[in-house]
């Protein structure tokens, strides 16, 4: 993937060539968008996350924002956590500058996702701007949950553009009809968000070390929630997780590998057995990875 210009076809071709000769039972997910597991995951996430925007729209107008202020947040801020933080501060009687600070702190992780996605997706020109705007939890997680580079790109674009479209559509629905719907919590939409984040985390917990990092960060979050402004515990947990990664000197353990370029470095066309074996272990026998 040194060129990266034709992000649709080059990796798909390489992958389908390998797969057709090594794992015949596979539906050859690299060959089309329609059969791609990453696209399925991305669409599922788009629907689930998009529907959750009903509660954002409704809560935003309840917090005192206008319809267009609510829509501008979804169109241009476009990061669920930051948006909820913003309206949460306003709804709680906070100032505009406090709302902006909370939203911005919560958005810092998108910069990290941006670095990761730049390495995986490698958009060029105007696509870089579009990619940046749709770089959020869901698109980053969908992409890095895939093992092949072509699937990572499909996952990123499907989840990113899909969530963007439905998130804005349902923000409008929620803002217009929010009061008529009543309390969005009555529909369990906050429970859906919890389930979605756990579902994104789950496939990463197969190995022991990622699981222990998750437990440590979960504990750090829960223990700091009562003492820090909302949004900041997430950053503290991120700092802890980053420090663990920084000071660990062993190789990237299984379960973490999919994040950066699993395609280029460890495997080559001359190493098909290794590739097929590893892919079978992670992708075929483990539904958690491709859902």
């Amino acid at each position, binding site marked *: 993937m040194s060129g990266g210009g034709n992000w649709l076809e080059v990796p798909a071709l390489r992958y389908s060539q390998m797969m057709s000769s090594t794992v015949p039972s596979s539906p050859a997910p690299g060959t089309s968008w329609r059969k791609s597991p990453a696209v399925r995951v991305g669409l599922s996430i788009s629907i689930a996350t998009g529907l959750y925007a009903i509660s954002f729209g409704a809560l935003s107008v309840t917090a005192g924002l206008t319809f267009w202020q609510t829509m501008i947040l979804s169109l241009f801020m476009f990061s669920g956590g930051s948006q909820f933080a913003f309206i949460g501060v306003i709804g709680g009687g906070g100032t505009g500058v406090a709302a*902006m600070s909370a939203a911005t702190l919560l958005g810092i992780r998108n910069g990290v996702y941006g670095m990761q996605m730049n390495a995986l997706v490698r958009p060029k020109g105007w696509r870089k701007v579009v990619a940046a705007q749709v770089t959020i939890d869901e698109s980053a997680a969908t992409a890095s949950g895939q093992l092949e580079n072509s699937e990572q790109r499909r996952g990123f674009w499907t989840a990113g553009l899909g969530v963007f479209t439905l998130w804005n559509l349902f923000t409008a629905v929620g803002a217009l009809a929010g009061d008529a719907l009543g309390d969005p919590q009555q529909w369990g939409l*906050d429970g859906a968000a919890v389930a979605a984040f756990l579902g994104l985390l789950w496939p990463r917990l197969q190995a022991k070390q990622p699981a222990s990092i998750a437990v440590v960060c979960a504990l750090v979050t829960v223990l700091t929630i009562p003492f820090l402004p909302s949004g900041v515990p997430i950053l503290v947990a991120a700092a802890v997780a980053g420090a663990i990664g920084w000071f660990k000197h062993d190789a990237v353990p299984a379960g973490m590998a999919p994040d950066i370029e699993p395609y280029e470095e460890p495997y080559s066309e001359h190493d098909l057995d290794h590739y097929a074996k590893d892919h079978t272990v992670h992708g075929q026998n483990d539904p958690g990875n491709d859902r």
Partner: protein
Amino acid sequence: MSLWWWLLLACALGFAIKFSGYLLPQRMMDNPRMSRVAATLTIGLLASLTMVNAFSGGQALTLDARVVALGAAAVALWLRAPFLVVVIVGAVAAALTRLTGWG
């Protein structure tokens, strides 16, 4: 300054942060230490976001219907349910819990 200005500034900062990730040189990500950090960061952030969504009520820990949703989603994932089913299970669990009058 009216709320509009803070809102627009927050949107601009949000995009600037996202975009800055795409402007860093690719070499930085080829470093094995950077990929380790990116990997552990993702796991840590997802774990943290799960907890915040489940237990945070502003700046306080709260125990409500969302913890039932968390448990139900975990069971669904344990049974290897597809992602969308997991999300629906979470919503239904929270909604049903509230119907019983708790949370």
